[in-house]
Every structure is written in structure tokens, then in C-alpha cells.
């Protein structure tokens, strides 16, 4: 693209060493992206500013928020939203779709195997001690497979684009991945702000996600007469907006633990018309807080007896119990082995080279190269418990060194990847920001990938961290439709 023609992106400079989604789209044939970028570029910065403002106020008025905890106070914040979309062309998307379904299929096979015969451990493809020591491993659910043998009903797989411009898997989330509500709300706002660009761009719709989810979960249920509900920890949970959003869009009740009770291994909802049978629960509560009788006798949360109903096959719990073993950051290293072992296929999507401090040789390497690596706790999330070697102080490096030596199972390390960047609106005009991508995969009788997802954006030009808890925001993600129906080129 000739920079001299640029209007909105006139002074835009990408970050050296990173692939930019808009400027350097040279690795793939991406004419459609260029055409959409041109449409945006016809906008003046002022127009853009007012669109940005209008988006902000729309989010605030709609109460599209998440909760941040600091000390004792909790505050509702708007999820910062950027109105320049990230665009993925059809061919790239088809490749991603195949890769994601392959990965979820393998992870689901892994869970079925780990909670029964454990072939993969017997044949020594993954160290037994590593799996059995995982925080998410729940030996109590062994040999009791969930309905339809589906463990991972809803997955959010985090992807990044590396320096070569190819998508690689950074992390699997197969317990309670969040963010889909923001993806759907972002799309609504974008359609309102840029109807003309939409009309010209053949973008895959995403509005049918709640419908797909509802039907996938109900396919697996053995009792069609029962209710489908969403189980939330409560209105103080940081993702409460999403729980409430999904309940609204799926047309189902949003319950807390004490709105439910169990009798004769059946789950009931306490309503103003007496108790009503529940057959599907999309739970946004961690395993440990599901059932105090089963997991944690001291817990006041959860529904006593819920696990009885689940293990008797009377209720679909999505996601299933015990999935944590599959998205453990140390076990992530072995997902390519799972794909080869269970599916006899080569992995379609590459993943980031990972060193498990659990293994002696890896640990040695990590300790010697800490200043060049990103270290993560295997049970951490939300961008907490992360060390970014090149940016870390001496004290931070020493602290992590000590923690790794003390508890090697808990840490993994990866080389620092230059995330791709995307033009993003800021106070200083349009600037590059690092981004990642979380597509969502729903599995009932078969798997389906939402043609869209959540593109997360780092807060500052320098930052590599995109988590909302660290000030990160999001963008709408446009998956371009197949075929050559782009009307503007």
C-alpha cells in the first residue's frame, strides 16, 4: 500500500520486528484486507474520534462492564473497545477452523483417556507424574464419562500471530473461557458505527452463537423436559455481565448455587411455582465450588449433591468436571503428541515452544536463559504470575528463579514472541498495539467454530500483555466470507 495515499493512517508507523495486520500483509494473499483498510482510510480522524466517543458511551449506557478487584473495593469498568477491526481473510480462517477442531477433538480424547484407561500415559507419550500432579486433575470422576463423552463443550483457544505472520496456539482454555459476550457486543456497536463498510465487506455473522450453544448443550441431554440454566457465582463475579448476557440471549434462567437443590440425584430450580427439573447447566463456576459434599466440605458455595446428579448422568454440566488437566500450561507442551496419538494426524496449528521446568533439562535451560524468556505459572490466568524476562528487573528475575527451583512443576517458560500489531485509536492518533485472538469452539454432537472471536489489545504501545485485568481492551474481529464477493475492489 502506498503510504502517501493514507488519510486516517497517515502517520501510522508499525513497531519494528512485529508483523502488522494492516500494513505488512505480504505473507498471504490478502487483497480483501487491503480493500477494507482503504475504506477505513477514507475516514477523517475527526469522524473517527466521534465514532470512538459514541462507542464508549454506548458501552457505558448498556452497562457492558467487567469488575476489577483492588484491595477491598470492586469497581465496574467498561472493557476498552477499539473501533478499528482486526480482519482475517477466508483462506486463513478455513485453515484456523480445521486446526482448532483438530485440537479440541484431541483434547477431548485426552480427557476421555485420562479418566479411564490412560493409554497415553501407559505408552509414555506424556509423563504420568506430570498429569497426575496437575491441579485440574480430578481422580474422583474417573471412569464416569459425561453424557455423549463430551468434556469440552465450550473452548476458547488463545492464538497469536508470530513474526512469520502465521497463527500459533498460545494457550488452551477448556474450563470457563470468557469473552464471547464482548465479541458479540463489539459487533453490534461496529454495525451501528460503520454500516457502509459492513455492507461492502462480506463479513461472517456471529449473532447466532447463543443459539448454537443452547442447541449443542441440549443435544447431549437425556431429558428434553428439563430446564437449561446458567450457573453463576453471583453478581460480584468479574464476568457477571457475560453470564447475564448469555442468559438473556439464550432465553434461560441465570441461577446461583442456592437457587438450586438436588433430590434423588436430580437437580431442581427453586422458582415461584415450586421446583423445576434442570437437565442442562452451563456453569461458570470452578470445579471446586460446584458441590461442597463432593469437593470442599467447608465451602458455603455450590449445590450439595450436584455431583451425584452429574455422575448419574441426569444433568449435562458444561464444561465437564476435571477439564483443568487438559489446559494445564505444562501439559500444553504435549498437545501435539495427543494429536498424533489419538488422531494419527500431524498438528495443523503450530504452537509456541515451551519448556516445562518440571523436566530437569528444560529447567536448567530456563534458569540459564531467564532474561530472554516469558515464564508463566501453570495454574495462573488473567495475566497474573507472569514474568517477561527481557523487561524484568534483576530482583524480579531472582524472585522467579527462586520460585522455579522451589516448585518447578508450577512453571513453564516460552521464548518471547513478537505479537502482531494492529492499528488502534489512541490519544496520540492511530498507533500500533499488540494483539492476540480468542476464537470460541462449541461442541455438542459435533464441533463448530464461531466465525469471529475476541481480539484482545494491549493497553500501551510497549505492552505485551493483553488481559483486561491489566488494562487491555478488545476489537471486533471480521472473518471475511468465502468467494470473491467483495464489492468495492
Amino acid at each position, binding site marked *: 500500500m502506498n503510504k502517501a495515499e493514507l488519510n486516517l493512517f497517515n502517520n501510522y508507523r508499525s513497531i519494528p520486528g512485529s508483523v502488522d495486520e494492516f500494513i505488512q500483509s505480504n505473507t498471504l494473499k490478502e487483497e480483501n484486507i487491503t480493500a477494507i483498510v482503504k475504506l477505513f482510510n477514507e475516514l477523517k480522524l475527526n469522524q473517527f474520534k466521534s465514532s470512538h466517543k459514541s462507542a464508549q458511551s454506548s458501552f*457505558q*449506557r*448498556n*452497562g457492558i462492564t467487567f469488575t476489577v478487584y483492588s484491595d477491598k473495593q470492586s469497581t465496574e469498568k467498561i472493557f476498552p473497545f477499539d473501533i478499528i477491526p482486526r480482519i482475517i481473510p477466508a483462506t486463513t480462517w478455513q485453515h484456523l477452523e480445521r486446526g482448532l477442531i483438530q485440537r479440541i477433538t484431541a483434547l477431548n480424547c485426552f480427557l476421555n483417556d485420562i479418566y479411564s484407561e490412560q493409554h497415553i500415559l501407559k505408552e509414555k507419550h506424556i509423563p504420568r507424574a506430570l498429569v497426575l500432579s496437575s491441579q485440574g486433575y480430578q481422580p474422583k470422576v474417573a471412569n464416569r464419562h459425561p453424557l455423549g463423552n463430551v468434556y469440552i463443550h465450550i473452548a476458547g483457544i488463545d492464538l497469536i500471530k508470530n513474526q512469520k505472520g502465521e497463527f500459533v496456539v498460545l494457550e488452551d482454555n477448556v474450563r470457563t473461557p470468557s469473552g464471547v459476550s464482548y465479541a458479540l457486543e463489539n459487533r453490534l456497536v461496529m454495525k451501528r458505527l460503520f454500516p457502509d463498510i459492513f455492507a461492502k465487506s462480506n463479513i461472517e455473522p456471529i449473532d447466532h452463537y447463543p443459539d448454537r450453544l443452547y442447541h449443542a448443550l441440549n443435544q447431549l441431554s437425556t*431429558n428434553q*423436559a*428439563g*430446564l437449561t440454566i446458567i450457573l453463576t457465582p453471583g*453478581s460480584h463475579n468479574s464476568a*457477571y455481565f457475560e453470564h*447475564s*448476557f448469555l*442468559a*438473556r440471549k439464550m432465553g*434461560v*434462567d*441465570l*441461577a*446461583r448455587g*442456592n*437457587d438450586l*437443590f438436588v*433430590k434423588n440425584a436430580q437437580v*431442581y*430450580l*427453586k*422458582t*415461584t*411455582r*415450586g*421446583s*423445576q*427439573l434442570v437437565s442442562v447447566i452451563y456453569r461458570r463456576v470452578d470445579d471446586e465450588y460446584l458441590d461442597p459434599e463432593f469437593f470442599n466440605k467447608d465451602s458455603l458455595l455450590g449445590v450439595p449433591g450436584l455431583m451425584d446428579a452429574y455422575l448419574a448422568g441426569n444433568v449435562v454440566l458444561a464444561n465437564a468436571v476435571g477439564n483443568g488437566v487438559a489446559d494445564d500450561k505444562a501439559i500444553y507442551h504435549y498437545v501435539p503428541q495427543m494429536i498424533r496419538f489419538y488422531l494419527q494426524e500431524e498438528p495443523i496449528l503450530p504452537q509456541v515452544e515451551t519448556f516445562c521446568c518440571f523436566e530437569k533439562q528444560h529447567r536448567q535451560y530456563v534458569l540459564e536463559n531467564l532474561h530472554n524468556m516469558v515464564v508463566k505459572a501453570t495454574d495462573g490466568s488473567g495475566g497474573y504470575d507472569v514474568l517477561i524476562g527481557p523487561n524484568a528487573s534483576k530482583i524480579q528475575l531472582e524472585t522467579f528463579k527462586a520460585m522455579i527451583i522451589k516448585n518447578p512443576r508450577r512453571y513453564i517458560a516460552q521464548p518471547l514472541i513478537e505479537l502482531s500489531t494492529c492499528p488502534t485509536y489512541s490519544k496520540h492518533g492511530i498507533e500500533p498495539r499488540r494483539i492476540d485472538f480468542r476464537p470460541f469452539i462449541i461442541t455438542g454432537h459435533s464441533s463448530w467454530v464461531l466465525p469471529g472471536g475476541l481480539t484482545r489489545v494491549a493497553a500501551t504501545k510497549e505492552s505485551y500483555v493483553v488481559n483486561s485485568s491489566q488494562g487491555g481492551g478488545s476489537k471486533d474481529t471480521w472473518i471475511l466470507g468465502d468467494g470473491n464477493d467483495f464489492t468495492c475492489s
Partner: protein
Amino acid sequence: MAMISRAAENCYWLARHIERIESTVRYLQVNQDVVLDTNSNTTDAWYPFIIVAGQESAFFKKYSDSRRYDAKIIQNYLCWEKENPDSILNAARQARENCRIIREIISSEIWECINDFWLWLNTKKCKTAYTDDRHEYYQKIKFHCELLQGLYESTLLQEEPYYFIKLGLMLERANQTARIIDVKYHRHSASSSTERESVDETIHWLSLLKCCSASEAFLKRSHFNITRQNVANFLILEKDFPRTIIYCLQKTLLYLEKIFDDFWNQKKACLQLTHITINELTAMSIETMLSHGLHQYITHIINKTGEISDAIQDDLFSPQLAFTSYPREQAQ
């Protein structure tokens, strides 16, 4: 259609808080006019509102006794005070929180209206309106409350969430009307011997009607015969006006019946209590009430609405509700 019992409680309280805000705003606005029109020394112009709001002890925990005459402090206490759970700011916070918890149950229009109201209350613009243009501040709050009442009617399915909202609204309104009638009792007015004093008396009674948005309706019925007896009779016993005590209690009963309908075979305490209270009211003439002392009678009504409120809590929302006593355990 059934709904989660806890969510029903959110609906009920959402409406109660909003109704409480509207009532507070209306009497503050009306009283502002009264103070300017009458020669009642301002010593007891505002304090009665603290009494009828049931806030006496809380108020004096925060302020010294002499503050009872401080118009500014009292108005601030009723609008903004953090330690007054019923201050407009706090009631709005609670209404919004109740609403946020049940966004999947109420309409998005209701949520947006309440959220909008809450966001506005927290703007600088709103604070400036309070200090510089009090009328505008009151109008804007009333506008949101009235808009919400319209949205209850025009955006909800007429089923349980709606019934619980209307139940909360009607019970709160019955209670607020009773409290407003009682304001007069707490003003230290001598008997109306001079002409000026009797003018003041008229202004006071008219103001009570205005507090209930009832002055125009009253005038249509009573042809400027603004006496204590007529005003009390109207505000307590007029069956055709939507803010009178009898009207609100009859609607309370109606929505309770809709909620229970034929599903619950045993008689519930809240239903019976409402029945009894309505019968008591209709059995007595206004002359008899006045002969007992209006204040005594109003106090009796306020206590009764409190008992109904407690009974609703026990019958419908109590977390200890034994679900074994539910008449059936069947999927629908």
C-alpha cells in the same frame, strides 16, 4: 410462568426503591414551594420529612439536635447522604444493582433507563443542577421514575416479573402516601384562629395532595372544599385514584392473587393480612377515623403495610423456604 424466587425479590425491590425515590423527590419539591408560601417559621418546615421517613435516630447519629432546623442539611440528607439507606443516591444505587442482577429477566429498556439515571446522578452536571437549579434536578429524577413506570407497562410480559414489580410499587406507594399524610401531624401548627393561619392550613393540605400528585384529581372531586376531612378522605379512601391508600392496597392484593393464583392451595399470611387491612379501611368512615385521631389511624396503617411487607418476605423470598413443602416437583 415460573421464575427464580431470588430474582422475584430483585424485581420487587427494584420497584420499591424507584417508588421511594419518586416520593422523596415529590415531597421535597412541593415543600420547597410551601415554605415560600406560608409564614410557618422554617423551624419545622423540613424536619417532619425525617420523621415520616423513619430516619430520626439515624439522623441524630450523624448530626446534633440543632440540625433539625437546618433546611440545607436535611435536604442533603434525603438526597445524598451515604449513611441514609433511603437517600435518593442510595436508593438509586440499590435499584440499579437489583436491576443489574436480573438483566435477563427485565427488559433492556428498563435496564438502560435505570443505568442512565444512575450514571446521570453521578455526573458533575447533576451536582451542579442540585446546587444551582434544584427544580431541574427534581424534574430529571421524576422524569426517570415516570419513564420507568411507563416501561413496566409497555415492555414486559404480563407475567411474574411484572407482577412482582407491580406488587413492590403498590405496597411502597401505599406506605409513602400514608407517611405523607402524617407530615401534617408533625408540624407544630396552632388551631387556625386567624385568617392567615387558615390560609396556611389550606396551603398545607393542598401541598399534601401535591406530594401525591393528587391536587388536580382532588379538585375535580371536591370543588375547592379543601378541608382536613376532605383531603384525608380522598388520600385514604378514594377508590379511583392511583395513589390513594385504598387503591394501592387493592392493587397489592390483586398482584398477590395473581402471584399465588390457584397454584398455592394453602392461604398465605401476606394475602390474609392485605385482605384484613382493606376490610378495616372500607368499614370505617372518615369521621370515625378522625375522631380516633388521624395520626393514630395513619400510624396503624403504616404498621399494617409493614406487616404485609414482612409477610411477603417470609412467604415468597425467605431463603429458609422449605422446598419440600412445595406442592409439586414436576418439570413443566
